[in-house]
C-alpha cells in the first residue's frame, strides 16, 4: 500500500493555490509535477557541480560526468536494457522519434512501408510523414475501433515484406488505450520489420523490460515521469542503433574530425552531439529512484484504482461520453458532455483551481475519427487522490450547470 499523503508532501507545488483554492492537478499526461528531491538536485548541480561532461580533466568535469553516466546506468536497469550504450539521452520523446525518423531516411527506399496508427501523438506522425516524403516510402495507418483500441486484424493485413518499420504508442495520450505492443512486435518481426514504441505515456505507469519486450526502439520523456523537462531517452538495440546513421553532427559525437573525413564516436555518444541538459539528466536519476522506490507495479495498481473510481463517478453525470473505453487502459479519461464544448468545461473548472487538459491533445486524427472538436481529459499520477477526483467531478457538474 502506498502512503499517498506522504507522497504528496514530497511535491511542493501540490500545496499551492490556484484561483484562490487548492490546486487539483489532473494534467499529468502533459507533464507531471516534480518531487522536492528532483528540484534540489537541479539546484545543487548549478550551485556546486556545474561543469561540462565527457570533456575536462578537472575535478568538476569528472564529477558531472560520473553523475551523468549514473543516470544512464539506472535507466538501463529501469527498462531492462542489455547494454548501457543502448541508452541515448535526447531532449524528449519528440526528439527521439525525430532522431530515428531522420536515420531511417538512409534505410528506406521507394516501395518500402512504414506503419503507424490512428491514435498516435503528432510527434509520432509528422516525423514519419517527413521521412516518407523524403524517401518515397509509403505511410500506412492502423485504424481504431470504436472503443479506442487498435484494429489488430487490419494491422496484420497491413504487414508485408515491404513493411520496414512499425511505430506505435505504448499508451495513447488522448484515449488512455494500452496497446498490445507485444503482439505488434512479434507480428512485425515475423515479416522482418523493425518496431519503435513511443512510451511517453507508459514509462512511469507500466513496468518495462526491454529484453523481454523485444522492441528495437523505445522512447520516453523524463518530464512525464516526475523528472525535469528537456530530457528524454531513446533506447535502441545495439544492432538497430549501429544501423542508424548519426542525427546531428557536432562535438561529442565524433571519433576523429578532419576536413577529408570524420569518423563517428561509438554508441551512445554517436547520437549525443553537443552539450546536453546535464542538470536535467542528473536529476532524472532521482525521479527514477522516486518511481522505483514506490514500485512501478504499485503505482500502476493505485492509478488503476483512481481510473476505475473516476470513470464510475464521471459516468454518473448525465450526457457524458468517454472516448477510449477499451479494457486495457491507463489512467487517462477523455470525455465530452453532450451539448458542451470542452474548452468551456476547461475554463470553468480552472476557475475552481482544477487543471485538466482540453483540446485535441496533439492527436487530431483521433478527433476526426470520432468527429469531435476535442475532449476534456483527466490524467492521473501517483500523488492524486479520490478526494481530488470528487472535487473535480463536482466542478465538472457545476460547469455543466452553468453552461447548459
Amino acid at each position, binding site marked *: 500500500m502506498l502512503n499517498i499523503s506522504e507522497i504528496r508532501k514530497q511535491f511542493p507545488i501540490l500545496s499551492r493555490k490556484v484561483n484562490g483554492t487548492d490546486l487539483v492537478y489532473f494534467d499529468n499526461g502533459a507533464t507531471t509535477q516534480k518531487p522536492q528531491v528532483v528540484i534540489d538536485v537541479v539546484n545543487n548541480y548549478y550551485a556546486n557541480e556545474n561543469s561540462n561532461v565527457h570533456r575536462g580533466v578537472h575535478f568538476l568535469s569528472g564529477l558531472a560526468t560520473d553523475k551523468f553516466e549514473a543516470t544512464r546506468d539506472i535507466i538501463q536497469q529501469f527498462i531492462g536494457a542489455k547494454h548501457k550504450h543502448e541508452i541515448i539521452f535526447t531532449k524528449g520523446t519528440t526528439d527521439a522519434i525525430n532522431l530515428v525518423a531522420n536515420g531511417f531516411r538512409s534505410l528506406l527506399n521507394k516501395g518500402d512501408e512504414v506503419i503507424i496508427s490512428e491514435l498516435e501523438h503528432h510527434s509520432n506522425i509528422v516525423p514519419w510523414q517527413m521521412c516518407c516524403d523524403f524517401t518515397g516510402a509509403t505511410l500506412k495507418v492502423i485504424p481504431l475501433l470504436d472503443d479506442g483500441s487498435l484494429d489488430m486484424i487490419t494491422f496484420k493485413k497491413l504487414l508485408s515484406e515491404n513493411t520496414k518499420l512499425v511505430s506505435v504508442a505504448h499508451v495513447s495520450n488522448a484515449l488512455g488505450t494500452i496497446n498490445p505492443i507485444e503482439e505488434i512486435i512479434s507480428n512485425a518481426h515475423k515479416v522482418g520489420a523493425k518496431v519503435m514504441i513511443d512510451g511517453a505515456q507508459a514509462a512511469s505507469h507500466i513496468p518495462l523490460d526491454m529484453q523481454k519486450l523485444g522492441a528495437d526502439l523505445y522512447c520516453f520523456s523524463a518530464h512525464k515521469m516526475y523528472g525535469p523537462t528537456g530530457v528524454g531517452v531513446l533506447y535502441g538495440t545495439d544492432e538497430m542503433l549501429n544501423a542508424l546513421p548519426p542525427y546531428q553532427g557536432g562535438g561529442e559525437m565524433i571519433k576523429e574530425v578532419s576536413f577529408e573525413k570524420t569518423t563517428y564516436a561509438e554508441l551512445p555518444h554517436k547520437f549525443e552531439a553537443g552539450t546536453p541538459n546535464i542538470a536535467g539528466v542528473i536529476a532524472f536519476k532521482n525521479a527514477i529512484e522516486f518511481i522505483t522506490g514506490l514500485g512501478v507495479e504499485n503505482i500502476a495498481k493505485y492509478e488503476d484504482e483512481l481510473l476505475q473510481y473516476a470513470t464510475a463517478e464521471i459516468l454518473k453525470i448525465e450526457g457524458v461520453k468517454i472516448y477510449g473505453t477499451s479494457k486495457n487502459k491507463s489512467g487517462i479519461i477523455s470525455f465530452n458532455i453532450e451539448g*458542451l464544448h470542452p*474548452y*468551456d468545461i476547461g*475554463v470553468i473548472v480552472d*476557475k475552481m483551481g482544477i487543471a485538466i487538459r482540453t*483540446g485535441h491533445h496533439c492527436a487530431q486524427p483521433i478527433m476526426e475519427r470520432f468527429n469531435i472538436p476535442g475532449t476534456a481529459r483527466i490524467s492521473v499520477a501517483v500523488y492524486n487522490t479520490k478526494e481530488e477526483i470528487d472535487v473535480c467531478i463536482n466542478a465538472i457538474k457545476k460547469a455543466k450547470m*452553468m453552461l447548459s
Partner: protein
Amino acid sequence: MRTISEIQVEIIEDFGMFEDWMQKYEYLIDLGKELTPIDEKHKTEDNLIKGCQSRVWLHAEHIDGKIIYTANSDAIITKGIVAILISVLSGHTPSEIVNAKLDFINEIGLKEQLSPTRANGLVSMIKQMKIYALAYNN
C-alpha cells in the same frame, strides 16, 4: 449612437458589479447565448478564425459608412466575449474602429481569455475586425 469609448465605460461598469468569477462567467455565458448568430451562409471556411481549441466565425459588412459585424463561436464562453467585442465595435465607422483602443479588456478581468496563448481565436478575431475596418478606411 454612443462612441466606442462610452460603450467600453459601460461594460467596465457592468463587470464592476460582479462579486466573484461565477457571476462574471454566468453573465458571459448569457451574453453568448443571446448573441444573434451569424447568418449560416457566412459561416464559411473563409470567415473562420482558427483557434486551436474554440473556433470563431466573423463576417463584416459595410453599410451606410458603418461596419456591421456578425460572428459566432462553437464555445459559449468564447461566444460571450465575441458578443462583447461586437457590441463595442459594430456599427461604427472604419476610422473609429481602426483607432479604437480596447482598454476595457484589462479592466474587466478577462485578460486571460484574450491572451494569444489561450488559442481560442479571440486575439485573431480582434485583429481581423481591425483588418476589415482598415480595408474600408480610405
